[in-house]
């Protein structure tokens, strides 16, 4: 992989992540103006959980609740840097840069450890 393609890959991941999350958050936001954060755009019953509870994400998404859409958007936003690091490991390896493939892999390992340890 050439450095140019590497940059296009990383830049592309960021654009896809940011656009997806912005569309989801905006959809949730507009939906909240129509039916309220806990309401449902598919006519299901309103949610009852706290808006800060991400545990109900799947249920809220299935009922197309604005809160679920916004939470999904935030999750995509948060995942974007992690995916970017993971893709960089592969890209450095394809570029033949073993040193930086290893360094980036170590960063990814620390990042994933922190997500498990720090909670």
């Amino acid at each position, binding site marked *: 992989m050439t450095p140019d393609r590497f940059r*296009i890959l*990383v830049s592309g991941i960021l654009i896809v992540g*940011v656009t997806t999350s912005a569309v989801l*958050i905006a959809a949730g936001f507009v939906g909240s103006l129509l039916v309220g954060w806990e309401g449902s755009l598919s006519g299901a019953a309103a949610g009852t959980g706290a808006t800060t509870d991400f545990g109900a994400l799947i249920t809220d998404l299935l009922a197309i609740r604005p809160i679920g859409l916004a939470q999904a958007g935030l999750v995509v936003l*948060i995942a974007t*840097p*992690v995916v970017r690091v993971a893709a960089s490991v592969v890209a450095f390896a394809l570029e033949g840069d073993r040193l930086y493939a290893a360094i980036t892999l170590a960063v990814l390992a620390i990042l994933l450890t922190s997500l498990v340890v720090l909670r």
Partner: protein
Amino acid sequence: MTVGSDVGIFAISLVAGLIGSLAGVGGGIVVIPALTLLFGVDIRLAIGASIVSVIATSSGAAAAYVRDRMTDMRIGMFLELATTSGAVMGALLAAAVAPSFLYVLLGIVLLFSAVQQVLRLGEELPPKTEASPLAARFRLVGSYPDGRLGREVPYAAQRVPLGFALMAGAGVVSGLLGIGSGALKVVAMDGAMRLPMKVSSATSNFMIGVTAAASVGIYLGRGDVDPTIAAPVALGVLAGATVGARILPRLSNRNVRLVFLPVLVVIGLQTLARGLGVGL
């Protein structure tokens, strides 16, 4: 939240994203006081929203910075080793260390750096571009296309161990105090490693998203991220950072420093005041 306050939060977040993307910081400096003082948001939820703002600033601007070769991905990843491991250490130490002492120490370091920044205001580019053996070994050298100067500008990291140590410190501070420490990252790259200001800012921008992602799990788990507040913040910051990323390549390094300097002074004073228990 009413629609009016949503629009207000969006507008302020847009400014935060714009300043943050130019200065290489996450925008918490704007978002946290605005949410708590202007919109009466609980400090806990304001900090949760500011972590989202850091990630949004980073990802929103980094797409353009990486494409335009403003970000040095090798230097960013090399230093990320120091910040992420520092952040884990900091979070584990959190129970054992008095935060007030750390706030004071960090405040002093940031204000001292601000003085250094003033002394460097006349300098457009760092004087040295020869790589030390360590910088050469880790390929901490490169060049970026300067839209203002209209040419390719080469650079090489100086004082790599000092920069790495400062970055580890920035990571510990992030983990311990739950702040993004983007200002300290810019100081480490610009001040210690003597990289061009625009490269320092864009590379810090690239890094803060990863550092914040490493600690966001805590905030999600504690219920500190409220989408009804974080949603307008994220949308505003993304819009502001997208605009900022288009502006930076055309600014002179001196002007980027002029954006960074007041941000650094305010963060330094805020941090010091918090350590001394003075409300600011």
